């Protein structure tokens, strides 16, 4: 069991999200940085779909009252275990009574805490993810608060192997390979596909989308990352009826400043869709802090989907390599 001593700014339980529920108006939720979430799980022998904690900017303080295997991935929020700096992207044995804490955001926005066995809150509509809008999943459908306790599921056999190996030979710890780590970096370039209403924007707006940097607004949240910068304009009036959107969809409201829809986006939206951030680059925007800048670059569908398949293949190879390394 994990006891929440301090909740942090916005800490939620997330698995890979609710699928098949958007038709009922229920959002997908799930991690903002799905790559970091999945790698965290693999590192502790979990299924990639196990529930982790997503911490935002200011992380929680967690009291661990059993020996557990855990891994922290994603943003560097200053993680420490019993006041010693915790290495990111690798499995760590946390002894009973230890305290996992975070100081402050050093790079990125969102960190993932995976614990062998996963956060074992009840699944609601097929998922443990916290849906802050419907108020379901996670802990009572809300962000964690101080005093919450989190049940942990039974660790896999693989987790046992990892733990034994780390104890026997601490140097044998295997971190996630460099090729797999998202290239968070400063002023990331996000690759985009054209959206259904791309042609309805002025030629100048279409040019500006990929020519000028945009700044991440403090108004951003799990529903969408709001950007400020060039105002994008439609060619003439266009009244779009509410239409489907997807994670990564770049919507342009009348202000002209784009919004990139993220994990908690509504199922349908009423603003023109100029483009879409490709799946493999969505972690980069999930980690873009308010005030930071980013750029867009257009790619075509063959490139976007071959990158998607490459990422899936890399994750599969990593999972195999871990199994081999620790067996």
């Amino acid at each position: 069991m994990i006891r929440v001593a301090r909740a942090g700014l916005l800490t939620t339980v997330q698995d890979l999200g609710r699928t098949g529920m958007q038709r009922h108006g229920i959002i997908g939720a799930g991690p903002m940085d799905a790559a970091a979430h999945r790698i965290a799980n693999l590192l502790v022998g979990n299924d990639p779909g196990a529930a982790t904690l997503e911490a935002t900017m200011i992380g929680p303080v967690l009291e661990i009252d059993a020996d557990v295997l855990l891994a922290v991935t994603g943003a560097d929020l200053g993680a420490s275990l019993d006041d010693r700096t915790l290495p990111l992207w690798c499995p760590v044995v946390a002894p009973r009574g230890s305290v996992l804490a975070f100081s402050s955001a050093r790079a990125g926005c969102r960190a993932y805490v995976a614990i062998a066995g996963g956060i074992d809150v009840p699944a609601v509509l097929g998922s443990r993810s916290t849906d802050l809008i419907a108020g379901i999943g996670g802990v009572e459908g809300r962000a964690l608060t101080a005093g919450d306790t989190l049940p942990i599921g039974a660790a896999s056999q693989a987790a046992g192997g990892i733990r034994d190996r780390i104890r026997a030979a601490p140097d044998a710890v295997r971190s996630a390979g460099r090729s797999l780590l998202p290239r968070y970096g400063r002023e990331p370039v996000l690759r985009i596909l054209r959206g259904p209403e791309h042609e309805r924007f002025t030629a100048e707006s279409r040019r500006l989308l990929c020519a000028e940097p945009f700044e991440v607004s403090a108004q951003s949240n799990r529903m969408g990352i709001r950007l400020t910068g060039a105002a994008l304009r439609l060619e003439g009036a266009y009244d779009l009826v509410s239409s489907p959107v997807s994670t990564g969809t770049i919507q342009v409201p009348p202000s002209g400043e784009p919004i990139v829809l993220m994990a908690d986006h509504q199922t349908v939206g009423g603003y023109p869709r100029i483009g879409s951030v490709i799946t493999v680059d969505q972690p980069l925007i999930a980690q873009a802090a308010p005030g930071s800048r980013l750029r867009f670059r257009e790619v075509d569908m063959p490139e976007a989907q071959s990158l998607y398949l490459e990422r899936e293949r890399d994750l599969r190879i990593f999972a195999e390599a871990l199994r081999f390394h620790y067996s």
Partner: protein
Amino acid sequence: MHAAGGPLSRMRVVPLGDTALLVELGDGIDAATHALVRAAFDALSAAGLPGVRDVVPAYTGIAVHYDPLAFAGVGPLPYDAARRTILDVLGRIRPADAASGRTVEIPVHYGGADGPDIEHVAHHTGLSVDEVIALHAGTEYTVYVIGFAPGFPFLAGLPPRLATPRRASPRSSVPAGSVGIAGLQTGVYPLATPGGWNLIGRTAQRLFLPERDPPALLRIGDRIRFVPVSGV
């Protein structure tokens, strides 16, 4: 592929990012487009295609969310493979029969604290409060879209006489079950949320039922009747 002028002649498939595609079936909010959307939704739901994560109908089209990995075979792009699979299913559909939807009655307590804007709607439309209630409850509506909030129905069929622009300043919290009017739209708030619709009544009927599967009371194509009751 389809006869010119046939119901599917305007069908268009376009990408919606790298994990979804959009099937466009029309361009306006109308009964003919809705009948096609429903038929396409039913066909795609029934097909249970492997690799399809969700099928989300809206006013003029449907989003199909898919896993590119499941459509990555020997040959073409996952997008092309998904597109072809979906067109294959949709090639056989015919517009849904409006009469085949269910009829759902929703009890509503009109006016008073449950419908604080009913006087405003009466004033705006030049009707009496009783006439507003009679007209709103005397009409059959069709659920065109579920979205915006869990189980929230976008309803077609509001008598144009009841059309009232949304409030100048939205309320910070509208109670769950509130029945409202905004422009030519009417609907029921499933959850307490901020909202700018004119509230004319409230229902005790829950629209979002997370403990059930499906978790939404209503689905597209359902016909709705509001039944006046004396209290919630």
